[in-house]
């Protein structure tokens, strides 16, 4: 369904708003039909709304939502609909009536439905059981830990770094002192979809060849990134590099709110240094082909490229003060 696009940057709220709008329309239609004496029975209204939500999630949202999440959503929306139809005694009686009518077989039609249900339900269950026993050739589900916990310390180029306390030596203010607030204020301005728009402060422009201090280090980090990282992580740092689709899973998308934005800078330093091969046991199934960059870059270069990634995406590393 592409006639109404999900707008980048607004997608999460758009999805909720569309669902809210639809429910409101259903409520209004039902109200109007009730006024006209043609109200939809509660039983069918409940089932209809539930089916609508499932279809919406399956066909409206793109890229496709994995089944596990749709199952969660389906269950929760099902519970919600149960709460609605049984919220008051009157509504509950109304909802139950068609089921009880069929079970009681109050007419020939209802008896027919009951007979059909008695045949179809066991058959469906049998079919479900049969299918679940069939051998499957699909790759098994991997409960992959995207952010495995880092060690307390890591050794890079012979030096031990305590990840809880170490600071990026290039995240400095004009006086050369570590200053996160200063550097946070000078990240790049973001357009929709976390695309680079403009520098926040013209005095701190990485394209300025005479730039000094923090922004100079960002520039150097950028050079390192485009010499080494962008082939996989992409020009926009969104994980869509030239070689990205040669890998499964594709490389991390730094513009996503769930990656570097959630982590301390030292975590990223550790992951870049050690690469996929240095993932801990918790990182099973170690599905990462990222090289251990400590074999190719110096400690300073790693710090600079990490800082560039935050600068470019407009995110701030997580801190606790």
């Amino acid at each position, binding site marked *: 369904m592409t006639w109404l696009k999900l707008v980048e940057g607004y*997608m*999460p*709220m758009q*999805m*909720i708003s569309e*669902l*809210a709008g639809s*429910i409101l329309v259903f409520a209004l239609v039902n109200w109007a039909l009730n006024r006209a004496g043609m109200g939809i029975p509660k039983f069918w209204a409940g089932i209809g709304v539930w089916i609508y939500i499932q279809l919406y999630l399956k066909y409206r*949202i793109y*890229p496709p*939502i*994995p*089944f*596990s*999440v749709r199952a*969660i959503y389906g269950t*929760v*929306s099902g*519970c*919600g609909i149960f*709460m*609605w139809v049984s*919220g*008051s*005694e009157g509504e*509950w009686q109304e909802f139950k009536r068609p089921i009880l009518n069929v079970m009681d077989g109050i007419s020939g039609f209802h008896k027919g439905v009951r007979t059909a249900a008695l045949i179809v339900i066991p058959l469906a269950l049998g079919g479900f059981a049969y299918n679940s026993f069939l051998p499957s050739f*699909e*790759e*098994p*589900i*991997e*409960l*992959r*830990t*995207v*952010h*495995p*916990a880092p*060690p307390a310390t890591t050794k890079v180029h012979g030096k031990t770094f305590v*990840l809880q306390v170490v600071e990026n030596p290039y995240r400095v203010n004009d006086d050369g002192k570590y200053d*996160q607030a200063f550097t*946070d204020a000078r990240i790049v301005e973001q357009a929709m979809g976390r695309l680079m728009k403009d520098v926040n402060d013209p005095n701190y422009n990485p394209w300025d060849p005479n730039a000094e201090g923090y922004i100079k280090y960002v520039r150097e980090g950028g050079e390192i990134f485009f010499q080494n990282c962008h082939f996989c992580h992409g020009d926009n740092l969104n994980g869509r590099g030239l070689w990205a689709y040669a890998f*499964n*899973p594709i*490389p*991390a998308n730094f513009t*996503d*709110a*769930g*990656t570097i*934005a*959630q982590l301390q800078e030292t*975590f990223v330093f550790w992951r870049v240094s050690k690469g996929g091969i240095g993932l801990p046991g*918790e990182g099973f199934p170690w599905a990462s082909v990222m090289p251990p960059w400590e074999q190719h870059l110096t400690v300073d270069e790693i710090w600079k490229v990490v800082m560039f990634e935050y600068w470019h995406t407009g995110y*701030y*590393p*997580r*801190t*606790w*003060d």
Partner: protein
Amino acid sequence: MGRLKSRQSGKKFLAVTGLFAMGVMLLLPIFVALPALAGGGAPAAGGPPPDVVAAEEAEGVEGEEAKVEIGRDVYYKTEGPVVGAPAPKTADTEEFYPRYNFESRVLLWVANQQHLYYGSFVLAVPIFCMCIEFAGLVSKDKAMAKKYDQLAYDFVKISLTAYSLTAILGGILIFTFLTLYPAFFGYLSSIFRPVMHIYALMFVAESGTLYIYYYGWDKMKDGLLKWLHCSMSVVLNVIGTVLMFLANSWIGFMMSPAGVDEQGRFLGNIWHVLHTALWNPLNVHRILGNMAFGGGVVAAYAAYRFLSAKNDEERAHFDWMGYIAMSLGVAFLIPLPFAGYWLMREVYAYRQQMGITLMGGLLAWLFIIQATMIGILFLTTNYYLWQALGRMTGGERFQRYIKYFVFILVVGLLVFITPHTIVMTPAELKAMGGQQHPVLGNYGVMSAKNGGINAIIMTTIASFIWYQRGNRVPAVKWAKFGNIFLITFFVVAHLNNIWVACYGYFIPANVRIGLSVPQVAGTLSCLFFGSALNLAMLSKSRELGPIRWGQIAPRSQYALIMLATAFTWMMGLMGYIRSSVRLFWHVNEIMRDNSPWAYTHTIGFGANVISFNVLFFWITILFVFWLGALGAKKAPVPATQPVPGGAPQPATGH
């Protein structure tokens, strides 16, 4: 007359003397332990043999000073004399880990969890008793006062049997520790030695107070004696809370040790050992959690009695009891997520890897299950309240809006439980084009989740306000203005919540964490200000009809049982998560777990053990309920006088 007076004054004297004696007994352990505390936990009694003392004295002061080794506190970074042995370096042998032909960790897990369930219950219920007895004491309506008193008594009666079971389970737990993890338990005991006996003596004081409180109920039912009886519940709860704080200090030490050096040697400052980085967040979280859990269990008891009631009077009484217990439980459930948030924040601040293991890594999926359980708790609470509107004349005028509340709750919950790490097949991963979904990925982070849970909590508060208004219409002059203001207040709080949730994506994490303050402030304002305003409006109100206690739909009672089961399951789950986050450490970064079970179980296995624990607890608590009902059968049949709400008149004696 004079005889009566002298008997009453005799009673008063006895009560005052009893309370005084109790206070002295309470303080006794602290006095006894003072030398040990002052000496930084050095052996309080006995000491080295006389010949050793004589030899030490002969060496002189200089020799003594030279012997004192100074260690550095792993957390406080202060220096102190090494007075303890290092943490044992264990190996996978019978010496350190004697075992049956079964996984020792699971045995300990079950013993610990059962003790904890009962411990939480018996700590929470006396707090309820205190509140309810006090409410009865200050109530001007005599019938209501009696009703409250009966309810408080019913509560404490249930907790009394549970108390014995708690003690038995505590014994089983200690035996399990001693037989399966002797090295670890020995080390922990050596560290906590200065307060170990305070704990034991507090337990004795708790038992004594509880028994006097229960058995003295009838003897101390009037006048000053009743006040003394009620104040005894305060003493009881103070002891209970101190007990819990001490127990919490052990798990706090295991997760975030302090007061020891890198080798785990005690440095003489017991306060540092107790007051670890996570102690206070754990204390707050556990108090609230226990209260919510206790409320849930009592509500389940009431539901069970309601469903098995033989007449309308019983049904009315247990309907009312279930409502009160549920309200108390939910009152503590509402701030619980905030306390949990604080705890997690402190965990992150203490160790980055611990925080990530919990919420982004290995245990992240368990957190999704936890979020689901929290959602179930709130949804069930709302559902119960909507059902409860059905027993009020006029309640139906709110029921037509239920669908909108359902929508907010469902959307809030969907956001709240969207996983950050999605379970998917490789084919789905490929189709999605990466690990993060561009739409749902945004729900998987804290900013959105805070918005989701706050929306759920505010809706629950609104349901409570509906309930308060069920059969009443405000009759104050400013009712119209008040209604408009109240609705606007809730709408603005919701909008503020959504805006802050979205804004959180555009600012640094440390600022984002601060954003939870305006979100929580909005929610708490709805809770306190909204409820207070509503009550002010109802201070002068027109009643549309009575509350028909006992005429609630039976499915509401199943909702109460589900509420309690969800509490139980969630407690088991969170305990498992909290304990698992230490991974292969008995004491984080100090004492390594070298048993064959120092690995993290699969989610399925963990869930099965939790479910077993829940099932076991509910089977045993049913026994407790049955005992409670057994006692009730012997109580005198209440007089059938009309009382507010149609509830039965409480028994005059117990």
